[in-house]
């Protein structure tokens, strides 16, 4: 029953899509129907899987690195007011530069391989993770910190034993966001210059007028993103439940 309820929106979306095909009758090179796309998915399953693996690797490595770097940055900023004054404006500036504009530069620096895409995924999630965790770190209830100080703890111990665990929910919500953003970064990186990956395959299919394959790739990207978000969300929920139990 629950599975059916989850499938309902999907079926509804497919029905809308098929309805548009029937009513508007667009040529298949503009909007292929669900059946055609399903066919392309099946025919190109090996190709899709091979390229999806590349993108998944980029996303996962970018996510892990971005999370660790964001974690370290947030703690550093929370510990040092002077670092905050120096680094925070830079962080905001880095976010005001459109990621698209940076992609060619990263390709120039890191080449056509995995590194440039990992850097893109990392960059796009670094800020949400850092700022969500930092905000949580600086809003640790004052009483807890004062209590720890009276007990003779230094700033480092207070950070490790009180502020970091207190801010864990903030870090987790940053990671939930990151799971949605990271694939965007990797795909953009692949558009700019790649010989493998789902972003590359999308452009290739477009260039060869294989519109049904292009749609198939979009579906795969969407499915991967949803799966990644679900996985991170599930993990975060389990961590939070364990903390409360």
């Amino acid at each position, binding site marked *: 029953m629950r599975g059916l309820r989850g499938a309902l929106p999907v079926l509804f979306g497919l029905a809308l899509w098929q309805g548009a095909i029937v009513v508007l009758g667009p040529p298949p090179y503009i909007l292929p129907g669900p059946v055609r796309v399903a066919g392309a998915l099946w025919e190109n399953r090996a190709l899709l899987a091979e390229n999806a693996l590349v993108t998944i690797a980029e996303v996962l490595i970018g996510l892990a690195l971005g999370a660790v770097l964001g974690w370290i940055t947030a703690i550093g900023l929370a510990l040092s007011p002077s670092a905050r004054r120096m680094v925070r404006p830079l962080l905001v500036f880095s976010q005001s530069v459109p990621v698209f504009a940076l992609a060619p530069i990263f390709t120039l620096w890191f080449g056509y391989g995995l590194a440039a895409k990992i850097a893109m995924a990392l960059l796009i999630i670094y800020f949400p993770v850092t700022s969500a965790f930092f905000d949580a770190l600086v809003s640790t209830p004052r*009483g*807890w910190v004062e209590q*720890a100080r*009276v007990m003779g703890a230094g700033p480092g111990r207070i950070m490790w034993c*009180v502020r970091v665990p207190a801010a864990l929910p903030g870090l987790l919500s940053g990671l939930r966001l990151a799971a949605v953003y990271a694939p965007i970064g990797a795909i953009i990186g692949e558009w700019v210059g790649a010989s493998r990956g789902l972003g590359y395959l999308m452009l290739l299919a477009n260039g060869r007028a294989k519109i049904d394959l292009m749609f198939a790739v979009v579906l795969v990207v969407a499915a991967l993103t949803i799966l990644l978000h679900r996985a991170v969300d599930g993990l975060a929920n389990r961590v939070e439940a364990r903390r409360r139990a």
Partner: protein
Amino acid sequence: MTAPPGLRFSGRVLSGAAQVLAPMSLSVAAGRWTCLLGPSGVGKSTLLHCFAGLGDDLLLDGTAEAGDGAPLAGRVALMAQSDLLLPWLTARDNVTIGARLRRERRGHAGAARLLERVGLHGLAGRKPHALSGGQRQRAALARTLFEDCPVVLLDEPFSALDVANRARMQELAAAELRGRTVLHVTHDPAEAARLGEHIVLLTPAGVSEVPAGAPRAFPRAPDADDTLALTGRLTRLLLDAA
């Protein structure tokens, strides 16, 4: 625990340009329970913060020191109105948090004993959300006892409890903290009348010691005639000062 020192304060406290504690001086007897009674906003908690070495945004124009001249840091425990238990730790881990913060190795056996003494036998593995308000404040008392400091600062620690729980906590705290230098900030005349070996009234008009008389038992019974009379006298003094 080392011999409890007395406490001395003299001066005033500023926060920016504002004065949060008017010029005053106070001395707290060593090894005795002193209640500092006064209306809200008169600067009682500020005074405690000065002895605890807290308040980065406060400027102490004067001194807050131990009577023996040695530094107070490391000899002071603080118990606040809110229990300040960390929600992700069990009661046992909350009691021993001070040791963890100082990187000391101290067994959980002591914590279990303390929890038993404050009446939380069998609840050591529970997290704060699974404890009642009274139980949480008992765990906070166990944490304060675990610190084993000669000076204990109490910042209205029982004011959030219902009457029966408050009376029980007062008895428990009085028994467990006996012999230490206790500075107990409260706005409740009945609490000061029960617990104070010395009672100091702090009002906008200034500081004055109220003779508490020698108690027959400590803490005084809440319904004893002398406790009720003292409560009445303190209430009158607060009314007159307002």
